């Protein structure tokens, strides 16, 4: 992601895509948000938010409904004025500019394609509005062709949005944003209206195009899988604040707060602490990932029970088995706690007895991570 390409000097057709992908021009600007604050209806929606997105980086704003992620995105796009704070794209302060003056382009949740215009006209509309310099019709047509080639939609250029599928509409919206050669690309829940299979395909497409063009991108999503698979970094938001801003793997392995640990992936959340492989009550919270709970079924009728309990943890009974495709989720009852475990391979049946061991766990105090522990 060291170079950025443009759609401006491309030839029509499939060649255009190659031209678009191979013509290095200017570098995408980064995004720097400082002290962003917004109160709506007497409630603080965004609370002194700071965030820096490096040029060419893809960052996700991830959080539950109502955490303020869309409000943040709308303030960055210019649709909502913050009560305080600064928003810089590249070196330019944009906080006082309207959306039409900002160097950003947005892909909306419902795509917001204008139904009275064809796909090509939708994509060409931002170019038609350019004043300095004013673009000729042939240049606009070329750039539209190149943008549509980039998202594989040239064959649909004369179709109305109502005539194309949801995935194609999504790609049209993406082309309309990319044709503007924005310094910053904003996507508001871009995949939430697509079915599961198409979602995976389109998110790969978006990531691939984003990397090819090296465009600084901010995506709002509530889908952790989407954020984890696409992003260079993820900002996990909660109640108007960023709880943690890290790479996907760091978020998962070292969540800074109990909220992040619960929101990203699955977690056994128990009051107390782990001592000698056993959960004991007390102050604090312990978090155990289900994949860090190992279950061994007792297949010899308890003959070697003593040996098992020493090596494989405490006696446990399987209460529920939930198949999840390539793995299954077990609901286990131990004498100290109820635990969920992920297992692969042969599945125990409900009521099966065995032993469950905790391999790794996270200790939280006052909602913050205190330490990560690994069983000896």
């Amino acid at each position, binding site marked *: 992601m060291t170079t950025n390409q443009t759609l401006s000097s491309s030839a029509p057709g499939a060649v255009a895509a190659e031209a678009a992908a191979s013509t290095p021009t200017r570098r995408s600007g980064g995004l720097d948000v400082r002290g962003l604050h917004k109160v709506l209806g007497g409630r603080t929606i965004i609370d002194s938010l700071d965030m820096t997105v490096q040029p060419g980086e893809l960052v996700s704003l991830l959080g539950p409904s109502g955490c303020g992620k869309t409000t943040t995105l709308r303030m960055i796009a210019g649709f909502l004025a913050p009560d305080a704070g600064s928003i810089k794209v590249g070196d330019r302060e944009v906080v006082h500019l309207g959306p039409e003056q900002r160097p950003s382009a947005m892909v909306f*949740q419902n795509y917001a394609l204008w*139904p009275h215009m064809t796909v090509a006209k939708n994509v060409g509309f931002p170019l038609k509005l*350019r004043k300095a310099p004013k673009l000729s019709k042939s240049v606009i047509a070329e750039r539209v062709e190149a943008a549509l080639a980039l998202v594989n939609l040239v064959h649909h250029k004369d179709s109305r949005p*109502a005539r194309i599928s949801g995935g194609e509409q999504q790609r049209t919206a993406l082309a309309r944003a990319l044709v503007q050669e924005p310094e910053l690309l904003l996507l508001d829940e871009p995949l939430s209206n697509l079915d599961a299979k198409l979602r995976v395909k389109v998110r790969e497409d978006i990531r691939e195009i984003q990397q090819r063009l090296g465009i600084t991108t901010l995506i709002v999503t509530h889908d952790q899988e989407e954020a984890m698979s696409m992003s260079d970094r993820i900002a996990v938001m909660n109640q108007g604040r960023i709880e943690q801003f890290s790479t996907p793997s760091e978020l998962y392995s070292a969540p800074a707060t109990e909220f992040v640990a619960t929101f990203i992936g699955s977690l056994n959340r128990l009051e107390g602490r782990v001592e000698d492989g056993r959960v004991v009550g007390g102050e604090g919270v312990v978090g155990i990932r289900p994949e860090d709970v190992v279950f061994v079924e007792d297949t010899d009728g308890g003959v070697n029970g003593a040996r098992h309990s020493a090596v494989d943890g405490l006696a446990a009974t399987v209460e529920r088995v939930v198949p999840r495709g390539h793995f299954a989720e077990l609901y286990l009852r131990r004498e100290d706690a109820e635990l969920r475990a992920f297992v692969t391979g042969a599945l125990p049946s409900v009521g099966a007895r065995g032993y469950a061991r905790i391999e790794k766990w996270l200790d939280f105090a006052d909602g913050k991570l205190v330490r990560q522990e690994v069983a000896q």
Partner: protein
Amino acid sequence: MALPPIVLIALFIGFPILLALGFSLGFTGGLNHTISVIGQNVHEAQGASPTFGAYGDLFVDRRFLGDLGVTVIVTLVSTTAVVVLATGIGLYLKFRGGVLGKILSGLAVVPLFIPVVIASWAILGFYSADGFLRSVFALAGLEFPVWSFSMVTVIIGSVWTSLPFATLLVTSGLQAVPQAMIDAARDAGASFWRVVTSVVVPMAGVPIIIATTFTAIGILGSFTVPYFTGPNSPNMLGVDMSNYFSAFNQPQQAVVMAFVVFIIASGIAAVYVWANFRSAKESGAV
């Protein structure tokens, strides 16, 4: 399923239209017999070949041609004024909202609850030689023109009566344009007027066209407003038809006028059908 309404329309609308068409072409037998006996200046067809005598009477009559011209002009001017006002109110409500927007859209609907005949008298009194407006101007030593019994009051009255329905239609059409469509246009770099002209109005185009056609057909066939507030001549065809039918006892000529209005209205109705078709096409239904 569709048969009962079709039979109803055929019996109570289609059949009388055919009967009237026959009468206008000189077929005076059967159910047209009585009226052709009572009426004056009735042209009769020779056997099966129709006569265009009644049409000929009117199209050389300068009075009719003047009335036709006035009808078309009043319809055009009033419809334009109604659509511009309704769209303006709708846009204000959409983009600014607030108390003023609500007051404007509320006021625009008030005429719906005032009978046209009362409104016509009020308009007449307001603009008459000894009316409110001239009296107020006279206090300041100014002379305001007399607008009562002129086409000006007919236009004002037509706008007054047509504005509520058009405002309801257009406002709801404009409100239905999703905010995201407007945001997307602004994000693409569009100014306020560009958003209005390229996105909002085209997207609400179908309701606006439907409001236009309803308004135009309503004004074209209006009677009460021009009858009460308009001049003796030239006046709109609705009033003229009534005069020809009852005062001049020339029912055949009155029916011909009705057909002329009907043909103009059909043209407007074709636009309505086209607008609905376009709407269906945009939503991918056809």
